[in-house]
């Protein structure tokens, strides 16, 4: 080695072996490519079909690009498509989904953050038992308690409204969210809370001024989690929403499954994309803050 690449006199060199492509890395690349195709091909078909006319779709070449790019299917899906007996398109479901999303998001995060804070940093009687109970609740399947929940919402007089759906989302998310917040707050150095207790002592003041500003990272995580799960939910929406308060997913399902006459593939695919876009936007917007939050190391005392 030293003979072949004789370095200039006086310098010491430690040549590194060149990196070679090994069989193992080729296998990994092939696997990753296949995995990527597995997701990309259906997505490609979905997107291109939504821009095609029905005439072109009937020709059957599903991988071809649209001959004429048209937004007609998108407009129709949004404005006119029928789901069940109403023909108002997806926009009705979109508004419903937003109306469900905001109250349940705010209520579930606010309540579980405060509960987690109390459990982690204040001495709460029976906190251990309560945490265990929460842990158990997090694993109860929704289907088991569905019927009692229906009875409860009926008795509360909110069954079949936006509020029923939002209420159920809030309640079901609470155990997991509380555990997440509690575990996050448990890692805050105890001296900080002791100092705050001596300086001010108010439960709410400490939460708002000291603890909440330290919670940026976990709030983003929980926000992404909740928005995705609430927006994508179908079962709660279809069970508690009734006719007037169905979220976008239920609206979409009705539109796609209950259609008389020919199946409008382009409208269905446009509708599916319209339903899927909002959580994607959230991923892109908040994902950036998520990474920034981690990089800033906000909690380092």
């Amino acid at each position, binding site marked *: 080695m030293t003979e072949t690449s004789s370095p200039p006199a006086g310098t010491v060199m430690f040549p590194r072996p060149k990196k070679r492509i090994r069989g193992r890395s080729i296998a990994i690349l092939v696997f990753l490519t296949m995995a990527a195709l597995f997701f990309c091909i259906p997505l490609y078909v979905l997107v291109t079909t939504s821009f095609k006319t029905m005439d072109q779709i009937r020709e059957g070449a599903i991988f071809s690009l649209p001959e004429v790019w048209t937004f007609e299917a998108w407009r129709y899906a949004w404005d006119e498509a029928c789901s069940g007996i109403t023909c108002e398109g997806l926009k009705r479901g979109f508004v419903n989904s937003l109306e469900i999303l905001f109250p349940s998001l705010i209520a579930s995060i606010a309540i579980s953050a405060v509960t987690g804070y109390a459990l982690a940093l204040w001495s709460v009687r029976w906190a251990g038992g309560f945490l265990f109970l929460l842990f158990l609740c997090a694993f109860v399947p929704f289907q088991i308690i569905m019927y009692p929940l229906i009875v409860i919402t009926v008795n509360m007089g909110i069954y079949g409204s936006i509020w029923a759906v939002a209420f159920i989302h809030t309640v079901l998310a609470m155990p997991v969210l509380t555990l997440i917040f509690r575990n996050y707050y448990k890692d805050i*150095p105890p*001296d*900080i809370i*002791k*100092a*705050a*207790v*001596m*300086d*001010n*002592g*108010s439960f709410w*003041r400490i939460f708002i*001024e*000291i603890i909440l*500003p*330290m919670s940026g990272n976990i709030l983003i995580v929980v926000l992404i989690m909740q928005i995705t799960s609430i927006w994508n939910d179908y079962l709660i929406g279809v069970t508690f929403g009734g006719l007037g308060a169905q979220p976008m997913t239920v609206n979409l399902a009705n539109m796609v499954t209950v259609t008389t006459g020919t199946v409008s593939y382009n409208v269905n695919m446009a509708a599916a994309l319209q339903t899927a876009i909002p959580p994607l936007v959230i991923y892109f917007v908040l994902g950036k803050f998520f990474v920034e939050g981690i990089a800033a*190391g*906000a*909690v*380092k*005392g």
Partner: protein
Amino acid sequence: MPRVSFEHIVKKFGEVMVLNSLNLAVDDGDFLVLLGPSGCGKTTLLNLLAGLSDVTSGRIMIGNRDVTELDPKDRRLAMVFQSYALYPTKTVRGNLRFGLSASKLPQEEIEKRIAWAADMLQIGPLMDRRPAQLSGGQRQRVAIGRALVKHADVLLFDEPLSNLDAKLRTEMRMEIKKLHEELNPTVVYVTHDQIEAMTMATRIAIMNGGKIEQFGTPDDVYERPANLFVAGFIGSPSMNLLPATVEPGGQARLADGSPLDMSAYAFGAVPPPGTALMAGLRPEHFALAGPAEAACRFTLKVRHIERTGSDVMLALAFGEATLTVRAAPADAGHLRTGDPVSVQFPKDRLNLFDAGSGRRI
């Protein structure tokens, strides 16, 4: 009237007794250091005073107020923590301001106090930075500033210097001492570092196993340790403790048979002949060649030598045991392991303890 007093304090964690009927009173303007090994209850005692944990029984008074049942914020105390405990999302100014947030002071007064503390601790240029942008020493200053702005009745320190490096620790030690001399607040300071305790305290309470072993000035605990625990704990290297037996005529005999002259010792009560003693000889009081007025003299072999630059520590073979002697490099520089050396101990520096009870006699 004492500024802070603990009266019959009992603290149990479950079934474990941490403090058992402890009494302690500190005068106004005193710098009290609670000193002791880990787990001796000193931090527990500080937390009880701060109100961060509750007493099982007993009473805590600050001035003439009974604070035992008060919330921490109502006790008019300020505390500096070992980990600084600065609020990470607030600026230095915000940290100082939050310290005053419960006090309902007018805005003007708050600003005045913050400016005063910033000036006092020379943290003015750092006021708009966050804790993460400060060095360890700067964070410690801010933590002290946050305690000072409150103008509290008593300042509490919980091992505030143990996270700093050696040089910074010495500087901050001087600075805290200077602050105490200028502002003269009552201070309760917890540490396991005896140098900190000896240099800063006006009163030291040495604790062990939940009890106060000795309470006195730094000179008291060094010159006249009340018992074997304090004798062994204070001083570095620690005091040599040699068993001896009392003989008639103010004499005693050490375990190796050499005599010990106790004639210059200020006895509380002269023990009868035959009493088993422990003689405490501080390594720094030995002399290699010195006055004839010696309580005892030995010629022993050097087992081990440790040079620190300013001193030479000699570990001498005293039978099976080791006798530690501190000497000046000029006197002991030539010594090697195995060399015989003569040492003598002055009469008036002797400490004597009852071997049974461990108490000073």
